[in-house]
């Protein structure tokens, strides 16, 4: 495994000039390079970026769109904020490269409303790119033209789901669509559209600049490259860390100065709660996947309180469109309230876990499919604690 100090994003010198390089290649070659790097989507789901771009490139249409998903709403994630504000070039030029690769004419940045303070910086940067002919008509003297528009979100977590995001861009409620058809065929206004995470565009920039082989040196067999991790909670040094995929949770805890740890929530509210007995597991798509959120809880923390916080989040953020998510999350939250009062039987708790498993299968979009994750993992891993919670002092009163 490469040493941890080896960084890609956080080393300005490692960036190079990817845009010039990409425009000298054919769109097909750019997509092949991305595919060879085995880059997978950094938003959390891990869909192979090269495959997505290849599908969009081969789709026949008069218009195509590139969307940068900057609706970073997963609790505990803030790496995109750092990328957008401090590594703007990687993200925006990564978008131009993606546009060229699929032959799109227009890109959108869907910036969450909570990050509206980044808008001015991004608009200025886009203006600068237009002046330097890195955006707009005939980019760098080629016959390729592409422009980027920024759209603000308005405070809806579900809009981070790609089809909900497209609905929102089109001026509708952010309710997820049925898939298929996938956005690569029927996306924004019915045209082929790729939606990628902020970090994915930055990674694509680096793949083109340094080459697919170089990128694929890092990480594990099925998770290539480096990953940005946002660390918060009980540790000495919270912040954004760049680590290779495959890093053990234990190593990460040491890196960030976590002491007296009881559990680690990986993947945000929709992720898994890992107890200390499992910290030999690693962060990768094969083992514990994450879009970048790591929240650390020390021994003084009440896991039922943590679970309650997550379930309240999902009850409020469910769009209400499909029943498993709308009603299921409410039932799980009621279960948490019963646990607080000490009136939840073991039998009913198991029924709630079964309900959670049903929600994972039956919900329409990623929100409902992943919302039972914290419930199931916290209830399973900390059963004694939460079943006797009502006896203790921190019983959520």
């Amino acid at each position, binding site marked *: 495994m490469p040493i941890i100090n080896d960084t890609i994003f956080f080393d300005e010198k490692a960036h190079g000039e990817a845009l010039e390089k990409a425009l000298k290649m054919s769109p097909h070659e750019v997509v092949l390079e991305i595919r060879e790097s085995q880059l997978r989507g950094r938003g959390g789901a891990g869909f192979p970026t090269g495959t997505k771009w290849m599908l969009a490139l081969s789709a026949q249409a008069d218009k195509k769109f590139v969307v940068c998903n900057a609706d*970073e*709403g*997963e*609790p*505990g*994630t*803030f790496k*995109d*904020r750092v990328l957008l504000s401090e590594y703007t070039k990687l993200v925006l030029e990564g978008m131009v490269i993606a546009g060229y690769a699929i032959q799109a004419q227009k890109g959108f940045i869907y910036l*969450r*409303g*909570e*990050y*509206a*303070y980044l808008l001015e910086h991004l608009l200025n940067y886009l203006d600068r790119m237009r002046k330097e002919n890195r955006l707009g008509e005939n980019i760098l003297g080629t016959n390729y033209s592409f422009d980027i528009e920024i*759209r*603000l*979100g*308005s*405070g*809806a*977590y579900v809009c981070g789901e790609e089809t909900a995001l497209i609905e*929102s*861009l*089109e*001026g*509708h*409620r*952010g309710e997820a669509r049925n898939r298929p058809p996938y956005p690569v065929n029927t996306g924004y*206004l019915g045209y082929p559209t790729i939606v990628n995470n902020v970090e994915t565009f930055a990674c694509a920039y680096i793949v083109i600049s340094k080459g697919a082989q170089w990128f694929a040196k890092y990480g594990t067999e099925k998770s290539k490259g480096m990953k940005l991790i*946002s*660390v*918060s*909670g*009980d540790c000495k040094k*919270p*912040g*954004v860390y760049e680590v290779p995929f495959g890093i053990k949770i234990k190593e990460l805890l040491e890196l960030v100065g976590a002491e007296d740890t009881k559990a680690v*929530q990986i993947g945000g*509210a929709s992720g898994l709660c890992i107890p200390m007995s499992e910290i030999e597991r690693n962060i990768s798509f094969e083992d514990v996947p994450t879009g970048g959120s790591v*929240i650390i*809880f020390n021994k003084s*923390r009440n896991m039922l*309180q*943590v679970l309650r*916080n*997550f379930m309240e*989040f999902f009850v*409020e*953020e469910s*769009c209400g469109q499909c029943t498993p998510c709308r009603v299921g999350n409410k039932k799980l939250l009621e279960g948490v309230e019963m646990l607080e009062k000490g009136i939840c039987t073991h039998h009913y708790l198991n029924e709630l876990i079964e309900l959670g498993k049903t929600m994972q299968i039956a919900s329409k979009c990623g929100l409902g499919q992943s919302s039972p994750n914290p419930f199931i993992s916290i209830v399973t891993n900390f059963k004694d604690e939460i079943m006797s919670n009502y006896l203790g002092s921190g019983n959520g009163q």
Partner: protein
Amino acid sequence: MIYPDKNVLVNEVDALVKKYGSGRESLLPILQDVQRKFGFISDFAMQEIAHRLDIHPVEVYGVVTFYSFLSTEPKGKYVIRLCKTISCELAGKEAVAKTLERELNLKFGETSKDRKFTLEYCHCIGMCDQGPAMLINEQVFTKLTPSKVIEIIDSLK
């Protein structure tokens, strides 16, 4: 309810439709600008916008009520949104919340009678490494403590 002067609103909607276009995809940017300028989106505004975009007012109402940053009720000049997600909660959100309620004499979800302050909770605002954090309109405040909150509120009063 306090309605802004109807002419002012009509002119504003006209200007926004001119700026963003009259397609359905312009709806959110138009609503966001109306919200920013008037502090809420009135029934009249929804009807005007629907008329210009050639959609039913109910469609507009559906969108306004879906997004938590858009509102059908007047909001204060300063909308304070305190993050209640777990990292900020662990970092001491509760003391900050109590201070805000006490100093503003408001409960969460309320707007002051003079329409100066609205106090709300919001979910993760991506400041988890610097919590507790809050947004006041579009500005972010981090590493809050009760005394820091008092200072911020005083500077706005």
